[in-house]
């Protein structure tokens, strides 16, 4: 008989923000490795440079705000923002693109609102959205999957040259993403005809699918470590899948397959790494379901009718706006208390007054 009484929860050690963020960083490794494997050293430089910028800018703004440096820098959140932004930017992006993006992310979206925990918007996605609307040319030049060591692969030195802005990206290096190419296929071309013409550089679809699965593996680590809950990714991907299936079922000749929508873009990356930002996302479980589903619906709507090929950044930012509203209506009932009275109650007004 055990004399030791234990009662749940059996948490052995307190989790700090720093260790949570370190696990997130670890979980991004499969995705980044896959991106680097297919698209070259540029991805690695992007991630490292953006992460370094994130820490540097955070230190700078903390000095300006006269806040303690060590505590805030050890929470690793600036590193995570940098890694996420670096992984979403096109490989071989020049340094100033990342500088502008990280200033928008860390200085404006995070620290001007009061630092970690106070930011209403996902910092990395603010940086990404600002770059996408400001520099559409640079932001839509995704690299051709030439691999790390292939015959046409770009060496370490050349990749560094692109980062420093010495070398301009050539046409042979850049191509469209699958979503981008499919969006601009034209009304007269059927989807089957479009794919028959080999519209993408060889290996592009394979690279994107493998990378999406690598992000999924990273997401599984986060789920296993209980850093994120299943609600948001499942509702997000579920909404994408349901809407994409409906559209594909209604007209397969002009819509991408559900699998294409799921794996061809940033849906999985967004579902596990972007939408799950604990600060700017909804709080309760029910709220997380609504929040994730909202992002999924917006992703499909913007992909289908919007001006941009992929939509994770805009969808996440739009749902960030809705988070206070979602939180207000999905606040769980406290045990022993009545359900909170929410919203405007409409009372029936009796118009049939008898004046006899």
């Amino acid at each position, binding site marked *: 008989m055990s004399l030791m009484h234990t009662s749940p929860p059996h948490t052995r050690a307190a989790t700090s923000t720093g260790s949570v963020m370190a696990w997130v960083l670890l979980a991004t490794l499969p995705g980044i490795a896959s991106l680097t494997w297919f698209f070259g050293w540029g991805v690695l430089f992007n991630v490292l440079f953006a992460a370094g910028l994130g820490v540097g800018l955070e230190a700078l703004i903390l000095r300006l705000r006269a806040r303690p440096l060590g505590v805030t820098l050890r929470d690793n959140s600036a590193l995570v923002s940098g890694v996420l932004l670096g992984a979403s930017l096109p490989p071989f992006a020049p340094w100033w693109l990342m500088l502008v993006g990280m200033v928008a992310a860390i200085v404006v979206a995070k620290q001007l609102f009061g630092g970690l925990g106070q930011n209403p918007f996902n910092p990395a996605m603010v940086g990404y959205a600002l770059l996408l*609307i400001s520099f559409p040319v640079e932001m839509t030049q995704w690299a051709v999957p030439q691999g790390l060591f292939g015959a046409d692969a770009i060496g370490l030195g050349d990749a560094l040259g692109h980062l420093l802005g010495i070398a301009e990206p050539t046409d042979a290096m850049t191509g469209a993403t699958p979503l981008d190419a499919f969006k601009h296929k034209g009304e007269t071309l059927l989807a089957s005809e479009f794919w028959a013409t080999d519209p993408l550089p060889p290996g592009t679809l394979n690279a994107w699918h493998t990378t999406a699965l690598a992000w999924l593996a990273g997401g599984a680590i986060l789920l296993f470590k209980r850093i994120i809950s299943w609600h948001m990714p499942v509702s997000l991907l579920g909404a994408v899948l349901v809407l994409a299936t409906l559209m594909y079922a209604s007209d397969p000749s002009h819509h991408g397959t559900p699998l294409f929508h799921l794996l061809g873009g940033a849906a999985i990356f967004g579902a596990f790494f972007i939408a799950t930002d604990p600060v700017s996302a909804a709080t309760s479980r029910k709220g997380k379901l609504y929040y994730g589903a909202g992002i999924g619906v917006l992703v499909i709507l913007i992909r289908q009718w919007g001006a941009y090929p992929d939509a994770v950044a805009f969808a996440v930012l739009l749902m960030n706006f809705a988070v206070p509203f979602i939180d207000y209506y999905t606040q769980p009932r406290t045990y022993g208390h009545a359900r909170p009275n929410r919203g405007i109650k409409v009372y029936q007004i009796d118009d049939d007054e008898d004046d006899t």
Partner: protein
Amino acid sequence: MSQFNELTRNGLWSNNPALVQLLGLCPLLAVTSTVVNALGLGLATLLVMIGSNVSVSLIRNHVSSNVRLPAFVMIIAAFVTCAELLMQAYAFKLYHILGIFIPLIVTNCAILGRADGFAARNPVLPAATDGLMMGLGFAAVLLVLGAVRELFGQGTLFAGMELLLGPVAADWQLTLFSDYSFLFLVLPPGAFFATGLLIAAKNVIDDRAERRRQLRQADQPKESRRVRVTGTIR
């Protein structure tokens, strides 16, 4: 005279319609993408503000308070129509660029706010001064915003000034960065951002001035208190 100094200081700085009252943000954010747009809208608003303040002040004792707001809006609308016709006559291209935002001056809360808040309670001369200074303050913020957004958005200053000032200004364009474009600042979100920075800068300047004032007060020797002496010193 001190009242006019007070009105000047209020309009241009301490109660600036754009930076402190945060009124009229819609045109402020929408049209300040270049200096010439900002100047055009600033001048039109200034004109309407002086005119409406003077007229409202003139009729202030003859309009009952129940119908004052419709009356003020009618007056403002009349002046906006004048400004619109003037722009059509002398700066037709700029009128086309500014588009809906010229008629929309009617709905600029800064103008109605001054009419109801100041001109309806004061004689003509202070009301006119207030209109002038508030209009200048608003136009100054528009100009600064227009300059910042034009410079950092497309790398030029005073581009297209001939639209407003005629052929004299045809070669006023300064190109500070060539082959440069930062679309974010040209688009309305950049206007929000730049306005926020301007407001922050104003608050910093005010804080510094306040701190300096306190320091100066602390430096001045306080009046020495007389020590009360009891008894006699031998």
